[in-house]
């Protein structure tokens, strides 16, 4: 958990961190949106297909198995604009988890899921895929400190 007092510092630290861990970075951020002309499943499968040359069928099955963990199989053929905030967050998290030995970085999670009041949803979402990433770092503002009860500082 990395909390910052202002946007400039947060952006700078986030940029430094992402550049340092570029090879294994799995970024979850509004600045790294899902590709709008691809289905959710293709967005997530893309990582495995591109970096590990996994066949489209195998990658799709893998993605479907992960979506099933969240009970979100029904969003596999949806596109970004049709998703709810929570569905979008899970899709972006899954995509980040697809990176091999990924270091997941969640950039200001409450801007992605503004309707969520505390970190319980984020904690649960991370727990579902905790076998798929090495580390997870959350970058947020200091004034959201009270929202992070489950994950802790």
């Amino acid at each position, binding site marked *: 958990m990395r909390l910052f007092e202002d946007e400039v510092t947060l952006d700078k630290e986030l940029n430094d961190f*992402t550049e340092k861990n*570029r*090879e294994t*970075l*799995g*970024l979850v951020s509004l*600045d*790294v*949106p*899902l*590709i*709008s*002309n691809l289905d959710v499943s*293709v967005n997530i499968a*893309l*990582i495995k*297909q*591109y*970096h590990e*040359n*996994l*066949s*489209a069928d195998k*990658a799709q099955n893998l993605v479907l198995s992960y979506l099933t963990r969240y009970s979100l199989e029904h969003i596999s053929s949806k596109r970004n604009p049709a998703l709810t905030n929570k569905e979008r967050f899970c899709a972006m998290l899954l*995509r980040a988890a697809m*990176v091999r030995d990924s270091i997941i970085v969640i950039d200001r999670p409450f801007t992605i899921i503004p309707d969520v009041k505390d970190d319980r949803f984020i904690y649960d979402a991370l727990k579902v895929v905790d076998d798929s990433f090495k580390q997870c770092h959350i970058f947020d503002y200091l004034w959201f400190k009270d929202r992070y009860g489950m994950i802790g500082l």
Partner: protein
Amino acid sequence: MINAIVRIGTTTINVTKTFRDTLSFAFIIILKMFNKNSYNSATRQVLIHQIYFTSVQILPLFIGISIIFGTLLMGIVLQIIKNLGLAEHLGRIIMDIVVTELAPFVTVLLIALRSSSAINAEIAVMKVNKELNTLDKFNIDPVDYLFLPRVINGVLSVVLLSAFFSILVLTSGLLFSKLLFGLSLESYSNVLLSSANFYDIIISLVKCCTFGFFITLIPIRFGLHATNDLTSIPIAVLNGMVDVFIAIIFIEVLSLILIFI
């Protein structure tokens, strides 16, 4: 007077810069095209989708236009050949007009109108939506994943659809040659085959490949010119499509010069 000279100079510099940038971008794409590391499961999937969108979805419209336009044109051309008493040059004239000139030109116009504009808008929207940033953050090379499949698709689509157009129009030519000259299928085929020139076919093939390459490359390049502002999308598409049209005319003129020298 000085203002006019300045304007001419600025325009010349801009045109030269655009031309140079397009060629250097083309060089990058060609290098990637012959690098086997550029191809993976994701790029192959994009290529298949692109071929479907460009070459398969367009088929009903393409067949309709080929039959209507091609048949009428063949009727007129064969009638003129008959009126001018040029029946002995029938095969040569048909091959020159249909295979070398008409087929690539009609095909490239149809694909440019439909797919080039779509590619231009798609890349511009991706740029505005920061989706290219997504690819960058996930270490996905946009040249491999986005641009290369589209350019390869452009080349394949123009070559294949142009050949298809030629077949459709030459088939309709059979009808008119039977009506006007009383030629049988065998005689008509013989006339065409004896008139087929290997050099012309190579020129036609190279022309189709060049058309396909540039009518996808230019929209991609102009799509990348979009800024983070939504209003930059129509400007990027407009500029891109104007340049696509200029490129089509330029390649056509170049090929005509090559044929006639």
